[in-house]
């Protein structure tokens, strides 16, 4: 029997129309395909708000849930894309194929998520109506630069990771040393330590973010993102070679470690031998207080050294996570509320967060809390606030991972005894190759 020619009974037709009307009514204020706030929004509904966080940001989501018990939340812990795992990108790529599964809000420890998340149509524009400009103005200068593509903000920076010079104030006083203000003084002190206190360190160059601490602060143009898909790469300019040479000389003097500060061998053999250590703002809580268990009152902060002939001091940056809101979210109001709270709340950013908040008012609370803890040997407020405004803006965030490229290209050679200067051309070639494979126009 061929049923297709039979007319549907009137009752069934009416039921179908009623069901369609009911579905439209239940879909909330926005219909499929409606363009609002600068993007095409999904039909809105009442389901649970799905939030992806790493383990460090889990307390943030939990605190929000505690303070907002009426909000139904599904908190998922993932690796936060740590070490450039690309977990989020992988999953979003699959969700884009299946047409569902996207989290509403997600935290990433990587600053370059916007570079693919915008192309993949995952990240919703935030400054087109979802979040008022008056609130966005509260972020530190250039803090949301990694999130901005063609003038549109697609994520919010969680924390800044500006670099400063950490030092052991007790040893400095005991040995009669002065904290260096220039790289020339820094190197001279490093060599002096090699002679007078062999075994002690003035820094470590064995981490994947070594270029972001030292070469970025030296204004080395290895990673100048000049457009959404354009990068200028020059690793052999004087700004690069003089910092690489300085590192090589201190490695040779054995006062610059070639181990990672997070490796077991550093923890066992070198963690208690740190006189100075250029590094990001999160070194204090995460590394010295957390991993190394350095006693209270020993660690101080000074501004990053600068070259004596450079009148404008500059700092590098190591990380600082971002929060993204899904353009596919069916709970935009709840998602926006959570995103706003988690990035600006004094209760979380000011009092609980481990890193220097990117939202300036919360940063003040955070600095006050850090100062009140009495852990540091000096007042950390001024150096951190100054460094927050000194991050050199000509080092950007491309889709390719600078950390992974440095790790694969330079770190093995450094471990094998090669100089960094000798590997700068290979580093440049690797950056250019990876950038091109990601579709970047490369200028060398």
């Amino acid at each position: 029997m061929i049923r297709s020619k039979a007319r549907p009974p009137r009752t069934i037709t009416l039921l179908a129309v009623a069901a369609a009307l009911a579905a439209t009514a239940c879909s909330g204020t926005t219909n499929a395909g409606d363009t609002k706030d600068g993007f095409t929004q999904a039909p809105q509904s009442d389901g649970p708000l799905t939030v992806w966080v790493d383990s460090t940001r889990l307390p943030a989501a939990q605190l929000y849930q505690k303070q907002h018990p009426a909000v139904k939340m599904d908190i998922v812990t993932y690796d936060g894309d740590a070490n450039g795992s690309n977990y989020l990108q992988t999953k979003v790529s699959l969700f884009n194929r299946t047409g569902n599964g996207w989290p509403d809000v997600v935290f990433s420890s990587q600053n370059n998520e916007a570079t693919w998340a915008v192309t993949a149509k995952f990240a919703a524009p935030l400054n087109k109506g979802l979040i008022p400009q008056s609130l966005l103005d509260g972020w530190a200068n250039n803090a949301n630069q990694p999130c901005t593509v063609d003038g549109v903000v697609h994520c919010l920076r969680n924390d800044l990771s500006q670099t400063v010079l950490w030092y052991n104030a007790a040893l400095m006083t005991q040995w009669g040393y002065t904290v260096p203000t220039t790289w020339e003084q820094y190197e001279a002190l490093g060599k002096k330590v090699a002679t007078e206190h062999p075994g002690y360190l003035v820094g470590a160059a064995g981490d994947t973010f070594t270029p972001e601490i030292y070469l970025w602060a030296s204004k080395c143009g290895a990673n100048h993102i000049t457009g959404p898909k354009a990068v200028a790469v020059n690793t052999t300019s004087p700004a690069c070679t003089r910092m690489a040479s300085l590192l090589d000389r201190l490695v040779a003097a054995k006062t610059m470690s070639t181990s990672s500060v997070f490796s077991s061998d550093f923890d066992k053999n070198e963690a208690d031998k740190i006189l100075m250590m250029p590094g990001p703002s999160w070194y204090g809580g995460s590394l010295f207080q957390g991993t190394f268990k350095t006693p209270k009152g020993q660690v101080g902060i000074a501004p990053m050294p600068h070259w004596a002939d450079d009148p404008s001091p500059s700092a590098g940056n190591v990380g600082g996570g971002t929060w993204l809101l899904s353009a596919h979210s069916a709970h935009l109001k709840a998602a926006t509320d959570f995103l706003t709270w988690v990035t600006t709340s004094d209760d979380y950013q000011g009092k609980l967060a481990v890193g220097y908040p990117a939202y300036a008012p919360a940063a003040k609370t955070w600095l006050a809390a850090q100062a009140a803890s009495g852990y540091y040997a000096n007042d950390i407020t001024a150096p951190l606030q100054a460094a927050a405004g000194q991050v050199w803006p000509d080092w950007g965030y491309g889709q390719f991972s600078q950390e992974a490229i440095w790790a694969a290209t330079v770190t093995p050679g450094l471990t094998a005894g090669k100089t960094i200067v000798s590997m700068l051309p290979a580093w440049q070639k690797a950056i250019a190759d990876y950038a091109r494979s990601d579709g970047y126009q490369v200028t060398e």
Partner: protein
Amino acid sequence: MTTVGSRPRPSRAAPAFVAGYVTLLVAFGIVPTAYAIYFAFTDNEGAFAGLANFAVAAADFRFLPAIGHVALYLVCWLAALVVLVVALALLLHRLGASGAGRTLRLLYYLPGALAGAAGVMVWLFVLDPVVSPVGFLLRALGYETFGQVIAPGNLPVLFAAIAFWTGAGGWIVVLYGALNTISTEVLEAARIDGAGAWQTAWRTQIPLLRKWIVYMVILAFAGGTQLFVEPQLLSQASVGVAGRDYSPNQLSYDFAFQNDNVNTAAAISVELLVVGLVVAAVFVVRSGFFDAD
């Protein structure tokens, strides 16, 4: 006299058992393979692309190094597999059903019972001289740090060691089973002819194991070309020192999820499939794998 009607009827259970296998083979073997082949020869719009995706893969700066890495790894892994697995299986067979034999069988099998990723995690600790239970050996070899141990030149040997540790136990048990099928009369004859343990193994047992060894090499080769978990986890643990595009399979993964180019990723997968099939065919033909005994 033969009665035609007495011929045993095939059991009805047999097709049911085979159907289960065939269903899974189609669902998780043939359909995904066909899907990958479709992707490999089309562009992202679904239009026929000829060999364009293969050309993109071959022209990528990471492609040849990845092939070289896996080729080196396969040399180490297959050599270790053939020599050590056969030797350990012979040793096990010699110990027979003694308590030591039973214990060794369990010990050989145990690492294979760990899931691949968990096995690699164990090795991440084993290879760190500071926390490794065999740290003294690593230090004796001149390695003081994890970074020194996982130097790029060491990776083929390290991956082969990890693969051997996680995968060889099962093969030892298989070859031990194969050795048990050799008739005692044959071994007895060899002994009466004056063959010692070494000569019995070399001239009698190993030739009779040939097909099992070929079978092992074919599967190990195909598995080896798929190298992924070991370098991927080591890359994570070493924060990139091992490289996230060390093997063609990782490169394929990167094309799919880093470069958003599923078609080129599929082309690399198809190439790996073709290489595995060709090598299997060569081994099968050269070894007379399907010849009747």
